[in-house]
């Protein structure tokens, strides 16, 4: 399948990226938004989308960040930020919460990443530096714990090296788990291409598709 992708003039800002992810979350979904950039997606979900947010520390139906007068020390999200409760919410313990993820009951999970490979391997928990103190939290559970895993990241590191790579050089969080990749320069779906998972560019921003492919030095589906 070949797709004509026409680039927009400029790459997406972080806000536009969050907006693009929010737009692609199906109406009525149950979703988990990871810590950091993915949290911003909540700001662009519309009431009509009726998306229910899960937080892995034991809640469905999480509302927005708590205003100063709403802060309740017993009501926090996975990033330990005070949040609020929406009508229809429910609480459960940690084993039930991760069973919900591992069992594939969430429709979508949105995560940040250091690297994503062409087959959808995700690296987002460790830079592998020898003296770093390791920490994983729920990253590995989130990576495999939803029907769809959307990743948000910049397409290139500060030094210009691609973060969508043939094979991850950072320690992986999960294998073949990413289904969509949202970046400043383009949006990719990881699709099955003749029995092999490969990225397909579905939107380009600020760069021609051919330029993206050239800078990434990887094969994109249909190009």
């Amino acid at each position, binding site marked *: 399948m070949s797709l004509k992708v026409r680039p927009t003039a400029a790459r997406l800002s972080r806000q536009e990226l969050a907006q693009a992810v929010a737009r692609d979350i199906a109406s009525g979904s149950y979703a988990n938004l990871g810590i950091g950039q993915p949290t911003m997606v909540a700001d662009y979900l519309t009431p009509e989308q009726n998306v229910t947010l899960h937080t892995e520390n034991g809640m469905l139906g999480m509302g927005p960040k708590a205003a100063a007068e709403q802060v309740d020390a017993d009501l926090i999200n996975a990033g330990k930020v005070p949040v609020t409760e929406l*009508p*229809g919410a429910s*609480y459960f313990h940690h084993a039930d919460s991760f*069973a*919900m993820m591992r*069992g594939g009951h969430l429709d979508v999970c949105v995560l940040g990443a250091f690297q994503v490979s062409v087959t959808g391997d995700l690296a987002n928990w460790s830079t592998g530096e020898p003296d770093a103190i390791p920490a994983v939290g729920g990253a590995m559970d989130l990576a495999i714990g939803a029907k769809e895993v959307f990743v948000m990241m910049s397409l290139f590191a500060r030094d210009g090296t691609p973060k969508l790579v043939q094979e991850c050089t950072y320690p992986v969080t999960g294998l073949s788990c990413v289904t969509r990749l949202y970046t400043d320069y383009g949006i990719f779906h990881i699709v099955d291409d003749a029995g092999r998972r490969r990225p397909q560019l579905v939107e380009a921003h600020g760069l021609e598709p051919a330029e993206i492919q050239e800078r990434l030095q990887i094969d994109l589906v249909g190009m």
Partner: protein
Amino acid sequence: MPQFAETAAEAVADVTDGATVLMGGFGNAGQPMELIDALLDSGANDLTVVNNNAGQGDAGLALLIKERRVKKIICSFPRQSDSWHFDAAFRAGEVELELVPQGNLAERLRAAGAGIGAFFTPTGYGTELAAGKETREIGGRNYVLEYPLGGDVALIKAMYADRAGNLAYRKTARNFGPVMAAAATHTVVQVEQLLPTGSLDPEAIVTPGLYVDIVTVIETRTPSAAESERHPAVRPHSQEEGVRV
């Protein structure tokens, strides 16, 4: 987000021939009798049924078996004083039986819902029901490897649902409902009462709405029994506003 069906028939309309159907209930408590009756009427055939028992008397699952619509039953306790339809079908070789210790049945359902690939259980080790199964000694104790038991559909019964599909049960009628709701691809629930979203207390919800696909209201208790009772999951004053689909 759940859908709401007007009738039990509509609620089970998507159950296809050959489906694996998880049926809640222990004895009559929590048994979704009206959904099972609707499944009988639907004509769905070649079913694999998971239930604690194998039908009692001349109702529900027993009738499905009588009509030879069940090719296989996975349960812990088929033999009862009034399980004559199962007994006859089994002796005639017309229904396959997989006998599972009750706790392994519950844990296999839980594993299916929780994404566990398999687990080592001490229950059944060294018995006929573990014959041929993989075993292992761990920390000086012997275990049997058991696999998840998921379903295409779960038919369960709860006391209350809200519009977000959250469920609360009543007393020992809770039994297999929560694990079956999580173990099935498609979960159909009959409830006594449907309440507006926000009427069920988040601390007392037992099955969160994400496990629920279809809700239908079937009153089986006298309205006075249902309404005179204070259930902790129902927030004060929300019951008067209870809606009926």
